């Protein structure tokens, strides 16, 4: 009896939206004929469904840009958290500047080739053979071949103790040589998530994590920010304009931070070492003074503030620079967060 009533009520609701079969309609009719309470419920619910408006309010705006902005902002916050984890005890800004500097100065002597060369001698392990083969291809400039050789090796020998190293080499090739950012993003993600032990033990952990974050941020722009950074670097005119344009388009991002360091290198004398805090600050200042875009100026002031705070231990100058940057709406939140990081005056 209870099941019968339950079924009849379900069908009654469905009938209000004309979703009953002929057999169900016949069953419902029989039940309605013998149950006055059910008939009353039908009348009441019919009236209800008519009374509840089904029209939708108009949105009238496009949410996509606002959602994008919030994604980027979220990536920035995650990045700040990640650095606290990756470089214990170090300030995030120091890590960023330092890692970027290493990247700028030692681009072609970094870990991918190191990983590959390290396995030249051994011939028994199939993964080591694959690594050696990839290293040969890399030396010949056949980066695509090396990438595919490594990819296949990792897929076939995922359980091998050295698979993590191969995965890191794969990610680095995609990032550094091929500039295949979607592939690099996926490869670093795999390295960190699936080869966690290798990642945590790696001397290149901080750099791998930083690239992972940069790629994750770039993902929100379909990697256009990274491609534009590449294009700006390839510009041989000596102009800072491509970097300024990039910063204006992607303010407060890691890509923008990288661009400021590229600008510093570009304004430095050929061969000049900008590794010291004072020289780096001087180069950043010169780059800033050559900028015409207010967003780029503000971003450079933030980076300069980081150098004053963490390298030159000059909180007063850092504060002044952050305050100046905070006047620019596009960079204000980053500048204010940096000011908060300084603590009370």
């Amino acid at each position, binding site marked *: 009896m209870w099941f019968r009533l*339950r*079924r009849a*009520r*379900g*069908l*009654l*609701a*469905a009938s*209000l*939206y004309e*979703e009953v079969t002929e057999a169900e309609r016949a069953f419902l009719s029989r039940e309605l004929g013998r149950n006055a309470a059910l008939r009353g*419920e039908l009348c*009441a*619910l019919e*009236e*209800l*469904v008519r*009374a*509840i*408006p*089904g029209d*939708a*309010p*108009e*949105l009238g*705006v*496009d*949410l*996509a840009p*606002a*959602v*994008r902005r*919030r*994604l980027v902002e*979220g990536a920035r916050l995650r990045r700040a958290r990640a650095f606290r984890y990756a470089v214990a005890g170090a300030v995030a800004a120091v890590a960023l500047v330092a890692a970027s500097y290493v990247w700028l100065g030692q681009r072609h002597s970094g870990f991918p080739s190191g990983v590959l060369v390290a396995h030249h001698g051994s011939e028994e392990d199939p993964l080591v053979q694959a690594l050696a083969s990839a290293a040969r291809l890399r030396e010949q400039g056949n980066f695509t071949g090396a990438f595919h050789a490594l990819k296949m090796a990792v897929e076939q020998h995922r359980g091998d103790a050295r698979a993590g190293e191969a995965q890191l080499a794969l990610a680095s090739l995609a990032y550094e040589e091929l500039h295949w950012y*979607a592939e690099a*993003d*996926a490869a670093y993600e795999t390295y960190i998530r699936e080869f966690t032990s290798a990642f945590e033990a790696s001397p290149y952990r901080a750099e791998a994590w930083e690239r992972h974050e940069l790629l994750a941020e770039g*993902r*929100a*722009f*379909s990697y256009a920010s990274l491609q534009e950074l590449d294009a700006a670097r390839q510009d041989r005119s000596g102009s800072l304009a491509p970097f300024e344009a990039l910063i204006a388009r992607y303010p407060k991002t890691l890509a923008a931070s990288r661009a400021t360091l590229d600008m510093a290198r570009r304004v430095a004398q050929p061969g000049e070492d900008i590794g010291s805090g004072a020289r780096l600050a001087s180069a950043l200042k010169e780059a800033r003074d050559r900028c015409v875009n207010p967003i780029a100026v503000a971003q450079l002031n933030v980076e300069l503030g980081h150098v004053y705070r963490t390298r030159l231990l000059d909180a007063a100058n850092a504060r002044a620079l952050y305050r100046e940057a905070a006047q620019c709406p596009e960079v204000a939140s980053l500048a204010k967060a940096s000011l908060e990081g300084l603590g009370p005056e």
Partner: protein
Amino acid sequence: MRSQSDEDIALRFQRGDERAFDELVRRFQGKVFATAYRIAGNREDALDVSQEVFLKVHRKIDTWEARGGGLLPWLVRLTANQAIDLLRRRKRFRHVPLEEAIAAEGGGAAFSRTEQQVRAGEIDVRVRRALARLSESQRNVFMLRHYEGLPLADIAEALGCTTGSVKVHLFRALRRLQKELKDLRES
């Protein structure tokens, strides 16, 4: 013109195509906003909820399965939960008198509104309040059927239950709404 199905776009995004995400936002923002508005009851909160939903979609797209029903039911479910969470946080729906709620929505201009408009506004507020009080299953079924017009069989697939259960949820949702609106109908 829609060259790709909703599910194709979601699958593209699952594979990492960020442009598909923008497409997804633009395709569903109207429906997500409408669902949020129906529960939150004002434009500002609905906009906030809608953005939160899409941020969540960005984070959780991997948990959506193409075979588990369409994308819309998933989005409606996320949106309704997000809007309810907002209401719970603010505890709005518990103690706000009807008159105040209507005034907050522009009902303060009731003097210049027709009796029919005032009544529609009252129904709107009561429905919103009732929606917030329904169980999650009842609310999802009702919103997907009444507002989005999805067939009950599709709703069942999306929610992972039988069509019979969906019908029972729908009946209970309607009866709850009926109780909420009973005094209005009697007056």
